[in-house]
């Protein structure tokens, strides 16, 4: 049995286990995002949006669709990995993986793959909900799916790092509440940064979520506050950085070995 073939089997096992896990509890993992987003569409899109008018040359409801889809993808990719990896630490069944001949990069790919799978499923669910409120015409399928997948990977890696350091269940909710949600809300989901004063526009450029939301908006609507190339490079740099950090942490056994 070739080593790489057995790695592939191990990767399939981890990712399948992750997909089965979140699909078993789809009412907790897939449905809430669809319901929440429907409420956003009703309140911000239909009720308030009609009074706002256009933004960046698009109806307000069309403008917020990409951000709302991506917000759900970000939250769920992150949540899937952070909760699954932490609970496997907590119940100690992470040891099943640590004693097996699986390299760390396969463990990372497996868990991140699970996060991406949930992110995409939630993205599809939210997109279907959005079709009840708007006619979605995709400007570039390639950019749309590329950004969707890269963003899922990035936040799944973030969730993994959070889970590696977490010692209690409180530790896995602090980052989403105090870091992820503010960054997402201030990342141009509901507005164009061109509306902000010059100083706050510059501050906003330090928010990585801004690049993802704008790149995704470019894929769906063809409109963006940020050049698409810059956005993709920033996303890739973050992925490489977080990938390196998670690999290093697993190699040293931080949070999982003594």
């Amino acid at each position, binding site marked *: *049995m070739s080593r790489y073939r057995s790695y592939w089997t191990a990767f399939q096992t981890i990712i399948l286990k992750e997909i089965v896990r979140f699909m078993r509890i789809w009412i907790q993992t897939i449905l809430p995002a669809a319901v929440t987003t429907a409420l956003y569409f009703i309140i911000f899109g239909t009720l308030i949006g009609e009074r706002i008018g256009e933004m960046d040359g698009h109806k307000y409801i069309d403008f917020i669709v990409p951000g709302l889809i991506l917000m759900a993808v970000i939250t769920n990719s992150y949540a899937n990995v952070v909760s699954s990896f932490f609970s496997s630490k907590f119940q*100690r069944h992470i040891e099943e993986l640590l004693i097996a*001949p699986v390299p760390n990069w396969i463990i990372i790919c497996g868990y991140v793959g699970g996060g991406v799978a949930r992110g995409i499923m939630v993205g599809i669910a939210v997109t279907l909900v959005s079709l009840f409120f708007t006619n979605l015409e995709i400007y570039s399928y390639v950019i749309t799916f590329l950004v969707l997948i890269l963003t899922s990977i990035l936040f799944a890696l973030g969730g993994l790092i959070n889970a590696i350091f977490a010692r209690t269940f409180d530790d896995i909710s602090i980052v989403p509440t105090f870091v992820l949600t503010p960054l997402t809300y201030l990342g141009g989901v509901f507005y164009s940064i061109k509306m902000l004063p010059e100083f706050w526009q510059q501050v906003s450029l330090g928010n990585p979520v801004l690049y993802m939301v704008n790149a995704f908006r470019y894929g769906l609507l063809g409109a963006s506050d940020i050049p698409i190339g810059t956005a993709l490079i920033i996303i890739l740099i973050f992925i490489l950085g977080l990938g390196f950090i998670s690999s290093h942490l697993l190699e040293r056994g931080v949070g999982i070995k003594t």
Partner: protein
Amino acid sequence: MAPIGICSICSMCDNAQMEVKALKITDLHKTYRSGPHALCGIDLEVEEGDFFALLGPNGAGKSTAIGIISSLVNKSSGKVEVFGHDLGQDPEGVKACIGLVPQEFNFNQFLPVEEVVLNQAGYYGIPRQLAVHNTEESLKQLDLWPKRRVMARELSGGMKRRLMIARALVHRPRLLILDEPTAGVDIEIRRSMWEFLQELNRNGTTIILTTHYLEEAENLCRSIAIINQGHIVEHSGMDELLDKLHTQVLILNLKERLEHPPILEGFEIKQRDGRTLEVEVERERGVNDLFTGLSDQNIEVLSLRNKQNRLEQLFMDMLDTSRNGDAS
């Protein structure tokens, strides 16, 4: 429970047919960040096919040593080789050879039994079809097949222990490490586990066992190491070790009640109660003289047993010697 034959993924590795030690540990150190030296340069060798006992009191370093061998604990320094694979150079080669049954339950309690074992096979890179076959075989051999669809958390304590053994065997390891596998298990299941492990060992699997039941180690194992305070204080064959026992204390149950303990030259006899005597017998002397002497005094013995398990007696002596050595 019937054992599983050797057919490991590890047997396909380069070292499968080579004459190498199942385990070779050289100058292994472990110091935890919190301070204590858990292992102070231990050396250990386990032959292929051996049934090896690693004994020691709580906190002696047994679980740390097992943790390092199975990659759950980072070593501070030293070398660990499993079937010729160096843990530092080729950790995956080492891992492929080992099956671990840890002390505490560490499987996903919210998965069905079958899935726990199937997932483990997948982590070892076993293709799905073979994984399904091995899982069925392992679960049947540990009498868990009827429970395959039951959630792991719903199993009894003994079944959970057997599930961990089934999981550890699913990739057919050449070296099986069991960290107190029979803790909290009733005597019937314990004996059936003993038989299973003996048969597994006869079929070629090298087994390393830690246990607090010294009777278990004495009955099952051919070689032994005793670890105390991070040092190996004894490392030999079980028979050689038991030969070191100079005296043994026997408990005799008598047919008739005695007023005073009998006096026999060369034997120290204490009376526990009217019908029970405690006799210290030197190893060279044997028990024939004792029975002859008692018979001459018309004392009839109904039964006899060792006061303490022989290994237990030696174990306590060695720990005392080790502690006194440290104190001095």
